[in-house]
């Protein structure tokens, strides 16, 4: 079965392709050539050999195009660009056979013309006819789509629906077809954009997953995005849950690691050494330092540990951890806490006292400036008048400088030639993300003679009513400075405080769904690690899920049973009689019901005359057609069958036309 395209559709598709690919000069004559074919009254009488040569010529065109693109690829990768270029040439490369098909007496190709292996074959496959119009139409739509120019659906949609409406099965009425086409278009419009967004999100997810596996918080080294170009992308996945136990409302800076040496965008922890802690009490209690004199505050932190190991984010001056079932806990000399041999999910309690400093002292690296940025930093310190100032005053000036003259941005601009990324940030761009601010703050503090370190972890301030806890997303990962002020380390966050709302605005529209998924995953993790976390109280949701599955299973079983119960009906025995399908029988049945059935031996015409139905307009014609359908050896032509059906339908549905 071959499908004939409506007149003008191919030309429209070609013009659409020309518009999209800016190949107007080619598309216009090609469209004209195709559309003029029905109006031209001559055809080429091409034999099989000539038709095969047309295919050979097309193959040569393809080879030439491929060689050209391959040469270009050698000079200018990547390959994908050239493949898209090739795709945009498809209508041009396939035009010769289509034009020949339209202008040849054959009017079609055979499959044997396309394949050398079938050229001499006389098989049914080789002789199968191949009309190229429909495939060419699809190719035009495809070729028009490879450019990034917007408005594709506005052209492709109507063209496709023109085809569908023209080729629709006649058993359906056109309003249904139009309604379906419109529904498809209306659904495709937002879905295509969602697909685009989904791909971007999947890329983020993949990057994040990759980072999760390969780049965890490293107590020795932290690579920043300083100097990277592009746009910083961070995902919305919830990675930490926090519940304050003493009525705090946050925000909290939870430090996972800190570093003391900077070089070219990388922070390192030099001279760091780890001390293994011994568990106390029930084996899940860990003392980080001596108990403070004042009453402590409490936090409950819920965190996933990959393979049972990782850095534990802690608030400043944490001194004791409880309910932490880790096999081993090590405290670094820079204050980072590393857990190992633990479960996949930990839910520990932290006791801390912000006002009572505990922990490590200042070290030799905490005042070192990087050699490359040293001059710039000293000059800035001089300009800000930091030299000779008390530490608290100098720190306040630095904070005011960074908060007042810099703005938060996730764009990663290229560094100014001759300057490092940090210098570009400090001197020219004055915009960046938290890593820039934290690094600048640490190094300016050091330039002012204040020992400082670079800390990374999470800033937690978002409350989730779904989770009933404060949550930290991946994009809430934060960097800040630690300053040695008043004899202890203090958090010194110089990032503009609006950074959280800035990040919030960039959240995708479907974040709610992502949150729901995170919550479900978390519930599953809690159930999975319920023994380790001591969280065995609430499995109702699982029972609910099991109940739902049971209902679905039951419904399916019931449905299957219902299908089985249906007996297999044998087709009724039929006697094949010519004209048995004549709709005039319905009229005869109706007349027999109204005026008595026709006795045996009485002809149809006699009976109709006797009961007075013969005089009904059209009855004589209908009866004649009916008799011919039944008894004429040639049968009744289809047109007359249709006419008879229409007349019967009119008689049945119209006003009663039988005489009383």
């Amino acid at each position: 079965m071959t499908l004939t395209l409506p007149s003008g559709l191919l030309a429209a598709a070609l013009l659409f392709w020309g518009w999209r690919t800016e190949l107007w000069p080619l598309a216009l004559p090609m469209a004209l050539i195709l559309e003029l074919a029905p109006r031209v009254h001559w055809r080429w009488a091409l034999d099989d050999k000539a038709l095969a040569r047309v295919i050979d010529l097309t193959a040569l065109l393809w080879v030439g195009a491929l060689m050209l693109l391959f040469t270009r690829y050698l000079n200018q990768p990547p390959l994908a660009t050239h493949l898209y270029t090739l795709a945009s040439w498809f209508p041009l490369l396939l035009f010769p056979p289509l034009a020949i098909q339209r202008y040849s007496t054959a009017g079609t190709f055979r499959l044997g013309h396309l394949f050398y292996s079938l050229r001499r074959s006389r098989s049914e496959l080789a002789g199968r006819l191949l009309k190229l119009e429909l495939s060419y139409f699809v190719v035009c739509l495809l070729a028009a789509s490879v450019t990034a120019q917007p408005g594709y659906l506005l052209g492709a949609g109507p063209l496709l629906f023109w085809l569908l409406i023209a080729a629709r099965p006649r058993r359906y009425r056109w309003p249904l077809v139009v309604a379906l086409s419109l529904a498809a278009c209306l659904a495709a419009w937002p879905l295509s954009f969602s697909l685009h967004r989904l791909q971007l999100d999947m890329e983020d997810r993949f990057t994040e997953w990759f980072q999760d596996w390969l780049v965890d918080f490293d107590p020795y080294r932290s690579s920043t995005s300083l100097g990277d170009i592009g746009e910083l992308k961070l995902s919305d996945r919830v990675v930490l849950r926090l519940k304050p136990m003493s009525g705090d409302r946050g925000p909290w800076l939870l430090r996972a690691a800190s570093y003391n040496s900077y070089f070219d965008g990388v922070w390192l922890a030099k001279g760091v050494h780890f001390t293994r802690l011994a568990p106390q009490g029930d084996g899940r209690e860990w003392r980080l330092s001596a108990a403070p004199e004042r009453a402590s505050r409490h936090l409950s932190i819920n965190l996933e540990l990959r393979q049972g190991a990782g850095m534990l984010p802690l608030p400043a001056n944490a001194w004791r951890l409880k309910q932490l079932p880790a096999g081993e806990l090590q405290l670094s000399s820079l204050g980072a806490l590393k857990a190992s041999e633990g479960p996949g999910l930990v839910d520990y309690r932290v006791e801390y006292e912000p006002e009572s400093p505990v922990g490590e002292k200042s070290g030799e690296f905490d005042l070192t400036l990087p050699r490359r940025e040293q001059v710039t930093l000293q000059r800035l310190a001089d300009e800000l008048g930091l030299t000779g100032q008390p530490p608290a005053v100098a720190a306040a000036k630095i904070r005011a400088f960074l908060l007042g003259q810099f703005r938060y941005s996730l764009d990663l601009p290229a560094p100014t030639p001759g300057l490092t990324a940090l210098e570009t940030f400090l001197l020219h761009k004055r915009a960046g993300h938290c890593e820039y601010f934290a690094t600048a703050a640490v190094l300016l503090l050091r330039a002012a003679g204040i020992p400082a370190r670079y800390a990374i972890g999470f800033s937690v301030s978002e409350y989730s009513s779904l989770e009933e806890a404060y949550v930290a997303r991946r994009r809430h990962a934060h960097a800040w400075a630690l300053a040695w002020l008043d004899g202890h380390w203090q958090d010194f966050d110089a990032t503009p405080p609006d950074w959280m709302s800035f990040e919030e605005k960039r959240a995708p529209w479907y974040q709610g769904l992502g949150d729901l998924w995170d919550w479900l995953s978390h519930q599953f993790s809690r159930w999975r690690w319920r023994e380790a976390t001591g969280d065995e109280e609430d499995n109702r949701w699982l029972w609910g899920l099991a109940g739902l599955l049971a209902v679905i299973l039951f419904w399916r079983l019931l449905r299957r049973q219902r299908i089985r119960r249906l007996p297999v009906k044998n087709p009724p025995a039929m006697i094949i009689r010519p004209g048995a399908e004549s709709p005039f029988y319905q009229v005869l049945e109706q007349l027999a019901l109204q005026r008595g059935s026709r006795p045996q031996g009485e002809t149809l015409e006699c009976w109709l005359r006797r009961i007075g139905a013969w005089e009904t307009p059209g009855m004589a014609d209908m009866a004649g057609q009916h008799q011919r359908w039944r008894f004429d050896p040639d049968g009744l032509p289809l047109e007359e069958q249709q006419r008879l059906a229409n007349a019967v339908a009119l008689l049945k549905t119209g006003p009663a036309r039988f005489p009383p």
Partner: protein
Amino acid sequence: MRHPLLRLYAAVYRPGHFLRQHLTPLGGWLFGGWIAAGAFGVNTRVGMTYQLFVLLTVLFAITFIISRFGQLTVTARRQLPRFATVNQPLRYRLALHNSGARVQRDLSVFDELRDAPLFSATLGHLPTYRQWSRWTTWARGTNSVAHALPVLPPGATTEAELTLTPLRRGRLEFATLSFGRPDPLGLWKRLFHQPLADRLLVLPRRYPVPPLHFHDGRRYQRGGVNLAQSVGEEDEFVGLREYRPGDPPRRIHWRSFAKRGEPIVKEFQDEFFVRYGLLLDSFAAGVDDACFETAVSAAASIATAERGPEALLDLLFVGDRAYCFTAGRGLGQTEQLLEILACATPRRDQAFSQLFSMVAGHAPELSACVCVLLNWDEERRQLLNLLRGQGVEIVALVIGPLATPPESGIRVVTAETLATELARLT
């Protein structure tokens, strides 16, 4: 079907088969476009191909869902002939009845066939996918081609003509009749299956053969021919005569004995008539299926050749055991021989010597024998000598090509030369 590779073939074949059955021609082309759009639209940052992909996805999804609604009120009955022939298009009729209240149009129909059990295990080696695919179609017996149905008015009964081309001999097992109803946009066909089991015997392909005339005349038929009708000289009653000592008492004609008062016996005459043998060599060790098909085709052509009203034809071959079927003189019709040949299978696990004893038993009754051999070797040469030794005139065809030429008088035929050689057969 236990080999993992064959399972993999089946897994690859199934989706394609599903799409071929369920997509309309328009749907097929757009489905190709959908695949291409998926390939080019993988990167949504480059180009807008993903929009075409989404648009086609939505179209296919919507139409597929909509096509699942509604029922079909058309039933059909197949009117098959008794026989078909390999590679010869067969036309048969379908009686259709629309019991619903709306006109049914744009319907298509095709027959679904079962794999014949006879052929389900004959693929010996591990095939390539292409070979497996062809073999699957061949084992099923024919390609299922969808036919468009005429418009069916409400309550109407009509007929449609369907065509199929059998690809192999043997029985074709029709399982169901599948009606295809297109969706409103004409992309998918929803299939409605009507169980409608039928069988059709496909006879081997036959070629014209001239009338069989051999030089040797009639032969004595020991014991006569059971069930033979009164044509020719048969071992039947020919008259009465007086009793002679030594006559068996069961031949006494008791009525005449009572009438005459002395024993009268019935006299019979021995049977002499022309009996031809058609020997089909089914020992196909080392011979491929195509050669065997050629041999069966040759045997079928010879079996249908004109041989005179009084001649018998014995078909001799070894299947699961040795068979001898006789046709002619009221014993059986030629079409019964063809039915037997339609179901003949090659033997690869038995020795050729089995044919010896059967041929030796029948040789004295045969006037001439046409031997269709699958190979030429010492055993086959001895068989022909055995027949010659019994005075049987021989015409031998060996299905070739052969590495070594046989002795003179033996004809080597191939699938290509079969028609020519049979036309020259005397």
